[in-house]
């Protein structure tokens, strides 16, 4: 089989539409992971009896099972309990929940990395819990973890490909569909690889730049 540029160009628009779905799913997943992860991290940090343990179990459970298994479970089992969603929405939720566990761990590391003296200063100034978290602790924690989070986001972008297994029409699924209908895999899969690289490589550079800019000049 030889490379056919004309054919490759003809399928490019469909693949780009797939890429768009991948990117949309990634951003939606990031949003879910950021919010859910923060809630999980703060509750675990506060060491509320039972509740904190439940969230610790949540993190272990989600991190201890494969994303593909979680995707299948959500896609095939949830409808049995009357929960029906589109494949895309199911996929976004699965990726978001999955990465919330990793994100929670990253937040936790960031929070624990904030100097003890910062907490003592908020006590000495009688700052209540809310501004202590939102204005003092989290801004410092987030600054330290953005590079780590950024790398997780790039990984999430690539992991969205797993959702092809539950018929989400993202980039890889589109390529597979093209391949099985045209009996050609060289061009679609090559283009898929190149398109992934075209997004993740610049993203990695941006993350590295952010890392340098956000570092405190102590």
């Amino acid at each position, binding site marked *: 089989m030889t490379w056919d540029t004309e054919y490759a160009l003809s399928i490019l628009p469909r693949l780009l539409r797939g890429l768009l779905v991948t990117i949309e799913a990634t951003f939606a997943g990031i949003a879910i992971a950021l919010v859910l992860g923060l809630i999980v991290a703060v509750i675990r940090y506060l060491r509320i009896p039972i509740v904190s343990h439940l969230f610790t179990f949540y993190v272990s459970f989600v991190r201890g099972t494969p994303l593909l298994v979680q995707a299948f479970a959500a896609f095939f089992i949830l409808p049995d309990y009357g929960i029906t969603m589109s494949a895309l929405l199911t996929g976004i939720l699965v990726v978001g929940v999955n990465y919330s566990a990793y994100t929670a761990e990253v937040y936790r590391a960031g929070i624990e990395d904030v*100097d003890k003296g910062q907490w003592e*200063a908020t*006590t*000495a*100034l*009688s700052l209540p819990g809310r501004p202590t978290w939102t204005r003092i602790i989290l801004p410092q924690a987030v600054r330290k973890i953005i590079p780590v989070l950024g790398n997780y986001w790039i990984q999430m972008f690539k992991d969205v490909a797993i959702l092809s297994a539950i018929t989400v029409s993202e980039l890889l699924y589109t390529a597979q569909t093209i391949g099985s209908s045209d009996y050609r895999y060289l061009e679609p899969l090559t283009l898929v690889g190149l398109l992934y690289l075209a997004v993740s490589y610049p993203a990695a550079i941006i993350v590295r730049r952010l890392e340098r800019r956000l570092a405190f*000049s102590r």
Partner: protein
Amino acid sequence: MPSPAESTDAESPGPANGSDEMITFDNVSKSWGDNKVLQGLNFHVKPAEKVSIIGPSGSGKTTILRILMTLETPDEGVVTVDGDELWNVAAGQRIPRETKQMRLTRRKIGMVFQQFNLFPHLSAIQNVMEAPVQVLGMSKDEAHERAKDLLDMVGLGEHLNHKPPKLSGGQQQRVAIARAMAMRPKVMLFDEVTSALDPELVGDVLDVIRDLATSTDMTMLLVTHEMRFAEEISDRVVMFDSGIAVEQGPPKKIFKQPDNDRTKKFLRAVLEH
């Protein structure tokens, strides 16, 4: 018709309940494992009094300040500030981490730390404005105005918008003093505030504290290794060793004619350097 004396009384630092003590420690103990940091401490401070606490490292000096700031829990004893109970712990009793009463009483106290503990992501003026806005509900304009005055007072009027990492240690510590002052505390705690500074930066910080000591009627508690400074600004010096106040009195007495052998030994050791 209030007499002039009475009208200034409204600003007086005296305790609200008519007691003549601003700070009381009664039978306060604290241990870390086998290490008894405070052993049945009885220690009273009058309104507007400036008290320096001296003594060897690990003698419990800092613990006194940290218990007042509620950063540490006493194992036993009663602590009051301005007539309000801050701690009342019976031996072996399990105490809640924080009560409303503690939170209210704590507002009367400000603290300056050895390591400054400024918020590194906020500018100097934001550091000073934060608590008045968030805790006292002051408008941003008013808080900004006052923060600016306070930073002027500590000689940092030119550095309002600089973030702590851009300031020297001495400048950071002066911002920290302004930040604590912004809450208008009745009691100020200074915990070895010059220990982390390069020697040439110590003077500016001590100048600011000296100004506060002479120009305000705040009650001040200083844990310090700056003996000459303690002698100069204190009304009273307390010598601490192994969790016990071994000797206390006016600075001249403690530094020139100490009675206690441990005080003599400690002063010989630090003044020789």
